């Protein structure tokens, strides 16, 4: 608990960058004992900008990203962020940590029956007391920021519409606004464009990359689409069968790596 004590102190100047780096050490996850989905993965994300994790379905990309904010419980290993080991946190400490990690989902995961602005304000739930959520009395500053974020993602006119009236691309914009509403130090995105058409996918990736850059925070994005990864990522991590098999800038990713990641070669023209 001595670790958490230091984390509550105001960060020293110059410690900013280190604080936003994420270090994953020998992370292992077994949904069934003896069948690891993640095989002792180690990864350090100290860079700003967008890191894309690519790999075939079922290779553990999603599990890896969900272990970072503990939507999935790791079996072993450590995840260091903001001076704490996320794997060891529980209760209020875990919730305090989750506030600083924004997450964007493949199927947007909005509360369909709530309005767009309510969905965006969900990003503040880690900060506001329960009674404020109950009475929808969010602090005026939060409401103001929610409107600004809706402006920023191009949904200013939709604030009071119900989320289930939006198209897929619009819903994902709300999802992004909700994640940014947390004022996160890290953004995780789990296949954010896999349910969207190609044009919307590009727009959504642009939005994530631009917003992360503006906030000066790293973004980790799982994706299927190698072209999108090349276009938007500053770093690409390739996974296969629960292990990292490639880690480098987009230029360094060659067909031989893709064959190693995805197997076969008939699909590469």
């Amino acid at each position, binding site marked *: 608990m001595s670790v958490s004590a230091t984390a509550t102190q105001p960060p020293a100047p110059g410690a900013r960058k280190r604080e936003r780096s994420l270090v994953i050490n020998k992370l292992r996850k077994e949904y069934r004992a003896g069948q690891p989905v993640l095989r002792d993965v180690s990864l350090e994300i100290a860079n700003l900008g967008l890191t894309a994790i690519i790999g075939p379905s079922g290779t553990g990309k999603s599990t890896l990203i969900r272990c970072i904010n503990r939507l999935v419980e790791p079996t072993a290993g450590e995840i260091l962020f903001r001076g704490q080991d996320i794997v060891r946190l529980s209760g209020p400490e875990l919730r305090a*940590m989750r506030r600083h990690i924004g997450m964007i989902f493949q199927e947007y*995961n909005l509360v369909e029956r709530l309005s767009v602005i309510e969905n965006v304000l969900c990003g503040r739930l880690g*900060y506001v007391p329960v009674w404020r*959520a109950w009475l929808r009395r969010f602090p005026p500053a939060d409401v103001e920021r929610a409107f600004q974020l809706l402006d920023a993602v191009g949904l200013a006119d939709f604030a009071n519409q119900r989320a289930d009236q939006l198209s897929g691309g619009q819903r994902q914009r709300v999802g992004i606004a*909700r994640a940014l509403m947390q004022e996160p130090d890290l953004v995780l995105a789990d296949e954010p464009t896999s349910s969207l058409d190609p044009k919307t996918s590009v727009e959504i990736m642009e939005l994530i990359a631009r917003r992360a850059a503006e906030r000066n925070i790293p973004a980790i994005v799982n994706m299927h689409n190698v072209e999108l990864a090349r276009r938007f990522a500053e770093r690409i991590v390739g996974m296969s069968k629960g292990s990292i098999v490639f880690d480098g800038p987009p230029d360094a990713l060659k067909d031989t790596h893709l064959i190693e990641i995805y197997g076969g070669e008939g699909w590469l023209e």
Partner: protein
Amino acid sequence: MSDAALSRPRVAFPPNWPARIGFIVLIAYVAYASTILDFTWDRFMRGLGQGANLLARMFPPDFAADKMALLYVGMTESLQIAIIATVVGVLLSLPLGLAAARNLAPRPLAWAARALIALFRSLHPVIVAILFVKSVGFGALAGILALIVASLGFLSKLVAESVEEMSMKPVEAVRATGSPFLSVVIMSVIPQVIARFIGFSAYQLDSNLRNSALVGIVGGGGIGSTLLTAFQRFDYDFVLTIVLAIIAIVMVGEVLSGWMRRMFQ
């Protein structure tokens, strides 16, 4: 493959012998039980004479002023019993239903809550009302308590089922923001189940209106007590007035609850 197809005629709907035998046994048992209990046409015809006699004594219904005053007092008490029991039942059923939902509550809590709900549901409101009349005495309190138990049994079970059927995706997303558990419930669970819950509550109000007459008959207060007294004094014309009033109230309740359900769709 074609050999097998040629040698044996293919049957699209093979006979289900266990089902056929089961059905025959059921019919035979109903016939047997009917003779044992004297459930026969003769017996029915003899009963009809009695019924005609009763109907004759019911008409015309009694609208005398003193009777109307009794009716009014009984009816308002029944309405109050039904409304209090519904409101308290609705308020208590949300936490109990959430505690019983296996996708949110820890296992031991969910099982305890489920056991409690099963207990509430196992006895008919009339039997529960008798128990309360014997333990807290005659009057409205016993009726209210009995209907609260009935409302809790019905509503909590449906809340638990709705919560277990809802999408976990928004719940996961709200959890990922670092939200405390109660805020997760308020912002992602309740919005998903509230429309159905209001529908159930409206239905329960409807059902409590009907049952409030019933619990009165066993001493739980309200119009049921008035009805029982009228029967015992052979005031069959007043009985008819009461029955008509109950039918009217239940119909108004049905219209109101349907209207409530539509409003919150």
